[in-house]
């Protein structure tokens, strides 16, 4: 909110520090000052008043009071006196408030014989400084008093009110109003209005209507200074999408005792400037009067909370400067009377803040806490996440962080279900919460494919499922012919997490699933640990890749991290290293192309028994030189025992293996 420096100065007899010098202490003790800007012969301070202080500081008087406390100076509110006239207010207007929970207070004054015209220069300048456009002396004074006191006011042309009545009531469904700025609104039963005998003349607390507008011919005006329930005004303002200087103040809450002060100030200015005659009496609907509260302030507690002792003299000075009244100064527990304008003060901690900030937080010396030595708890979730990320980094993956959202388009391509929909997305890119990590990883590929020939990325993050499920998922991919590289990475990862019983199971999608299957049907597998299915591995279907304009193949692993974490083991048990030499024999075999390597491995293991320590496949070859429909597999077989094996013994086992392999007529060991 912007404030005029000249206006603030007008409350002080002594010269204020320069605007730039004033900003410093304001920032340190009250509010952030966003900007200090020169404007004609005035300066503008853009002050970020916090929402809790709107009640008293959305006004020049409020900020002046803060300045007085901060720089320890005296400030004075301008005086005003209303002259007696022969007119009686009852002869001009009557008031009826139908809902005392919605309208907490309604004060009105009538001013007769006003001369509507241009307002004096000093008022115009101050309004312009604060970003308001001068209109005529009546409207300008009303706005001026709002900026000065924080109380929104409104002026009606008395003669334009039907039957000279003001009724505060909820609108009828379908009732309409045209506001001062010529906007049309259709009203309903939840909207509070100011009406005359027949129709709404203002949207309460938000905006005046066009009908009873003050114009050049206006002679008699009704001034309104009211207090409406803050939540009601906020709801209406949101519903009508209509924010005004008045609604802003009302929705934050205002002291009901302020209406009277403000209306008298405005009446005084109109009497002085527009030469009006103020009718005797104040119409005042105020069923539940608000009185100052009292709060006990325990000085020992204050010291305990701030960690610093503030001298009592300072406490007294600070509180009094801010208009608080101390009732029992000599004691340790003070009773403080809170002025009703301080809507934000309701507990002693609020007072401690007032004292702390004005005294100066910089005076609080840092002290390390004295506390029991409770060791921090180990967070295993984070431990396993870090471990996982480190392993994937070691095998060459880049970690990415993607948005937690997917678009309508993603949802169509993947035919996603059980999605959680965002009620108020910022754009189509955030229609749903991501149900898996693959769409956004594919977008990463798309964006990077022109710069990198090979992309190797992963993400570990939350995925979501209706109604409110969230869990961690680990998904990674490599571009190109990388099926075995991805599989090897998954093996390395799982081994690194202490998981050994890993295997890959073929997956046959059901007819229903195959329609929406995002994987290449022949190049995918389920990742299993023991009997448990923990994820999926495979090549993404070219149909999906086309939708994301990806040129290369993409091989993905997609693992349920919650399951993975449960299976992970931290301990590693050392296996003694054999003192006896290992012997290696190679074996090449021609098998039909459909034969799985695991079938050959199983037979070698069965035939070789315990002396076969390990089998490495080092070549898989399919080519023209080979017989039709065959492929060549080549293995290193590693023999080892807890004694030195002699050559003859190894040859015998190797022969046995060959014999068993060749039991299948389609298999042919190459010699």
């Amino acid at each position: 909110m912007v404030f005029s420096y000249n206006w603030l100065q007008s409350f002080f007899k002594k010269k204020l520090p320069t605007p730039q010098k004033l900003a410093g202490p304001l920032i340190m003790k009250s509010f952030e000052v966003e900007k200090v800007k020169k404007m004609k012969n005035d300066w503008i301070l853009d002050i970020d008043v916090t929402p809790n202080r709107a009640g008293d500081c959305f006004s020049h008087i409020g900020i002046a009071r803060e300045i007085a406390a901060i720089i320890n100076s005296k400030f004075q509110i301008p005086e005003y006196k209303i002259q007696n006239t022969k007119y009686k207010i009852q002869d001009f207007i009557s008031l009826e408030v139908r809902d005392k929970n919605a309208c907490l207070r309604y004060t009105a004054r009538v001013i007769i014989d006003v001369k509507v015209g241009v307002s004096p220069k000093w008022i115009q300048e101050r309004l312009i400084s604060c970003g308001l456009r001068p209109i005529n002396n009546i409207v300008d004074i009303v706005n001026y008093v709002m900026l000065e006191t924080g109380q929104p006011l409104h002026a009606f042309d008395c003669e334009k009110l039907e039957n000279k009545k003001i009724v505060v009531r909820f609108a009828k469904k379908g009732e309409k109003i045209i506001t001062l700025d010529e906007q049309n609104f259709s009203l309903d039963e939840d909207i509070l209005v100011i009406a005359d005998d027949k129709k709404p003349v203002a949207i309460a607390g938000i905006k005046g209507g066009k009908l009873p507008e003050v114009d050049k011919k206006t002679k008699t005006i009704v001034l309104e200074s009211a207090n409406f329930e803050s939540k009601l005004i906020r709801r209406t303002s949101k519903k009508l999408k209509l924010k005004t200087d008045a609604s802003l103040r009302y929705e934050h809450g205002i002291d009901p005792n302020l209406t009277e002060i403000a209306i008298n100030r405005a009446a005084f200015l109109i009497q002085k400037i527009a030469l009006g005659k103020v009718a005797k009496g104040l119409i005042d609907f105020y069923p539940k009067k608000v009185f100052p509260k009292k709060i006990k302030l325990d000085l020992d507690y204050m010291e305990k909370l701030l960690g610093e002792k503030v001298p009592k003299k300072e406490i007294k000075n600070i509180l009094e400067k801010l208009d608080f009244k101390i009732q029992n100064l000599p004691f340790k527990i003070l009773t403080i009377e809170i002025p009703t304008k301080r809507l934000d003060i309701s507990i002693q901690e609020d007072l401690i803040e007032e004292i702390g900030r004005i005294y100066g937080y910089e005076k609080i010396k840092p002290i390390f806490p004295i506390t029991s030595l409770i060791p921090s708890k180990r967070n295993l979730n984070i431990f396993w996440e870090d471990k996982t990320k480190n392993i994937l980094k070691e095998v060459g993956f880049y970690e990415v962080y993607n948005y937690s959202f997917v678009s309508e388009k993603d949802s169509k391509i993947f035919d996603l279900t059980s999605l959680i929909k965002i009620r108020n997305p910022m754009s189509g890119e955030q229609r749903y919460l991501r149900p898996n990590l693959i769409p956004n990883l594919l977008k990463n590929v798309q964006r990077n494919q022109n710069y990198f020939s090979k992309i190797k990325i992963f993400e570990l993050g939350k995925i979501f499922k209706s109604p409110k499920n969230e869990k961690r998922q680990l998904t990674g991919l490599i571009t190109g012919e990388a099926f075995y590289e991805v599989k090897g990475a998954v093996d390395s990862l799982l081994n690194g997490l202490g998981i050994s019983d890993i295997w890959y199971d073929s997956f046959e999608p059901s007819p229903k699933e195959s329609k929406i299957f995002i994987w290449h049907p022949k190049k995918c597998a389920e990742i299993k640990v023991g009997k448990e299915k923990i994820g999926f591995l495979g090549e993404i279907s070219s149909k999906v890749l086309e939708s994301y304009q990806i040129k290369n193949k993409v091989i993905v692993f997609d693992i349920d991290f919650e399951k993975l974490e449960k299976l992970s083991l931290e301990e590693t048990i050392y296996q003694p290293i054999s003192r006896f030499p290992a012997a290696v024999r190679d074996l090449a075999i021609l098998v039909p192309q459909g034969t799985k390597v695991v079938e050959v491995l199983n037979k070698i293991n069965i035939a070789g028994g315990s002396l076969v320590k390990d089998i490495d496949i080092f070549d898989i070859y399919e080519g023209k030189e080979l017989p039709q429909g065959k492929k060549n597999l080549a293995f290193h077989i590693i023999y080892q025992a807890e004694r030195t094996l002699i050559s003859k013994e190894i040859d015998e086992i190797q022969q046995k293996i060959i014999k068993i392999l060749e039991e299948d007529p389609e298999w042919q060991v190459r010699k």
Partner: protein
Amino acid sequence: MKLDLKILKNKVQKEIDSVKDLKELTEVSKRYLGKKGILTEILGSLKKLPRVEKVKVGKEANQLKNFLRIKLDQKAIEIKEKTRKETEEQERIDFSVPGKKPILGHLHPLTEVKKKTEEIFQAMGFSIVRGPQIENEWYNFDGLNIPKDHPARDLWDTFWLEPESSKLLLRTHTTPVDVRYMEKNNPPLRIITIDRCFRHEATDASHEINFYQIDGLQVEKNISVANFKATIQEFFQRFFDKPVKIRMRPSYFPFTEPSFEIDMLCLNCGGKGCSVCQNTGWMEMLGAGMVHPNVLKNSGLNPKNWQGWAFGMGFERLTMMKYKIDDIRLFYSGDLRFLKQF
């Protein structure tokens, strides 16, 4: 026989001296010391000699054999050394040719900074905790003393979830975790949470729709603003690995009272004013305060017995300061040219 040995010694000496490479040397060795070598045969023929002579000649022959072995070994070393020098003389490496780099993976900068932050707070006795990203209104707002239909709620622009009746939202800060933790754990307690949050606002160089927030909480019988100041200063000092200066100024959060903002003297200009700190000399770091009694109550704690401090800080901002990154959107761009720098 005696003469023979002397002649033999001279002959061998010459042969060894004239040898050029290891192959020739092996031949010499074979010729004299091999199974059918000259000296081997001499030693073998000794048994035919009379005893006295056998001892005498035997001794000399053995001496010659030892002499020969030493000579051969020395010569071998000499040749190897020579060849080594010759090869080294010929071999070259161009160290200006770029090295062959192994393909390394990279962790996201937020992961790296998260680890470092967790480490520092764990060393100060804080446990690392977490909470759900889908929250309800109570934990995100009401429980934190942010009433419904109050303008204070406008400080947190919120993504709401369907259906409207569920009243579910994406948490706008990690502070709900504080309430959830206090409900289930007895004080004294010290916790840190660094996790993903969401704000319904337009993105620009310093705002993102999802982001990470670090939230800290300490609840004790006796804990003060002074204690918070010391703790957070220590954190920054360890994090930036240099002495830092902080300042505290008033602010407003519904869940703390008093509330304050922490600024740090600009690391870039040391307070003189520069583009990084928008010429103020200070950088806004975080919001903090003493936990509001209502929040303690809402978490099942009696504010008469317990007090605490809490703070919340944008985690990307911290990371951006550390690496001098100027646009928050880079973190979520998935741009490998960015990620490979960490």
